[in-house]
């Protein structure tokens, strides 16, 4: 179980998370939705310990990551997670199978002689065959995501964190990735958080959906309840409307009104 309480994080001059409270139950797939820059990816990085919150707690199976100070403890905490990065983050200098098996060396005590076979199995699990010796630069966007997914599940984590798994993919490939997420949940029986702004993906893969807006969780409920919500903020986001309580500037810059003449 993942339980976040009052998680706050600011970057210089910019608060990102202003007190996120969210609990993800065992076996659940929680989709975290929200507009660009709302802090959902930062939250995911706080969960795995890549970003340290300024305050609040994130407890996973009784361990609070915010209280861990020794590198070895943080590393041990991270072992339970698989993380799918938004842009796949495959290592350019390694082949596909070396990428997939990379974590096995550090996260497991398996003999290196088995790495290639395991990589092949995990690649088969995400629907890829005969790509083991290719380089990441030779793969399409969808294939990169799949390889990254195979890498994230290679060491058989208890939790999988997906950072925008369908961003940048065509609609069909997006749906293929959604199916893969569902299949993996069934096959591996993991708990997952899927950060996305793709509502179709959220409805399909999630057992619950939480919406973050301005650094706080606005709502967390089952997909059907989110679909039928009357909350104007959530409504606007799930319907994808430009008009509503969530103000998006048409232009990021506005001409400044200068008092007392020109500077």
């Amino acid at each position, binding site marked *: 179980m993942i339980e976040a309480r009052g998680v706050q994080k600011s970057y210089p001059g910019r608060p990102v998370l202003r007190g996120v409270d969210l609990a993800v139950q065992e076996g659940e797939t929680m989709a975290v939705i929200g507009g660009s820059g709302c802090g959902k990816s930062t939250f995911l990085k706080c969960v795995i310990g890549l970003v340290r919150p300024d305050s609040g707690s994130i407890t996973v199976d009784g361990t609070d990551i915010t209280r861990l100070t020794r590198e070895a403890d943080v590393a041990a905490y991270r072992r339970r997670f698989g993380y799918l*990065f938004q842009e796949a983050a495959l290592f350019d200098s390694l082949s596909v199978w070396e990428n997939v098996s990379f974590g096995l060396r*550090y996260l497991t005590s398996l003999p290196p002689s088995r790495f290639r076979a395991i990589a092949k199995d995990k690649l088969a699990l995400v629907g890829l065959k005969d790509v083991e010796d290719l380089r990441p630069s030779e793969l399409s966007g969808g294939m990169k995501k799949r390889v990254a997914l195979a890498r994230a599940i290679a060491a058989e984590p208890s939790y999988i964190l997906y950072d925008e798994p369908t961003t940048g993919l065509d609609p069909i490939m997006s749906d293929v990735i959604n199916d893969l997420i569902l299949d993996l949940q069934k096959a591996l029986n993991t708990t997952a958080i899927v950060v996305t702004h793709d509502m179709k993906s959220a409805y399909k893969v999630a057992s619950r959906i939480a919406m973050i807006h301005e650094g706080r969780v606005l709502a967390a409920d089952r997909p059907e309840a989110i679909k039928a919500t009357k909350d104007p903020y959530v409504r606007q986001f799930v319907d994808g409307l430009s008009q509503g309580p969530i103000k998006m500037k048409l232009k990021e810059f506005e001409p400044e009104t200068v008092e007392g003449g020109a500077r």
Partner: protein
Amino acid sequence: MSGPAFKIGLVEDFGREAMAVSESVGRFTFLVRSSLTWMLRAPIEWRQVLIQMMRIGVESLPVTTMTTFFTGMVLALQTGASSKHFFNEPLFVGTVVSFAMVMELAPVMTALVVSGRAGAAIAAELGTMKVTEQIDALYTLGTDPVRYLVIPRVLAFLMVLPLLTVVADFSGTFGGWVVAYIKLGIPSSVYTSDIFDNMEIRHFMHGFLKTFVFAGIISFISCFKGITTTGGAEGVGKSTTAAVVLSMASVLVIDYFVTAILSAVGIT
């Protein structure tokens, strides 16, 4: 902006810069300390060290050899011309070329060339890894960028730069001989006796020991600039430039102090 406001602005700017510099120095020190801790605590990634030795050493060898060869040539030409002017014949060309190469020019020029070539490549590679989240991926896959990326590069630099410098010692001295023999008409026996009658092992060690300091400086600065990159492709460009400029400047500045220390302890 009027007088007082302008002054406050200046103080603020200075303060901000000073804060940024001290933060960078702190983080750099932390990187060095963390590297030393990892070296003692975890097995070294020897495969990565070998790969880096190939990239830093073998691939730099042609350019460092050629550069120092021509430096030796020009040194011989200048020394010959000067001594002809004063003494009417080229004297001690072998001594000047070999001492200058072995004690100063080969270590410094090799360090500068390698920092421009391999240091820039390291900063660009690690910078790209940082902005494409590959460094974060290392953490999520159970390792640490210091262990997997920094230590192999630092070790490779420490092993390869001294070797490149030894080759540069020979190529520079050989370049000097080419000019001395062909252009200045100095017999080979005179050129070699000029070298070996005067040079002792401590002269060689003076230059050789410096290279370890240079290797540490270049590798740590390049890795540091790489893994602290922010701001996408533009950030990678800035980090790469900063890595090269800072490495080169540091090599030249620290060379003076290392020379002073080595001289003080009698290795000169």
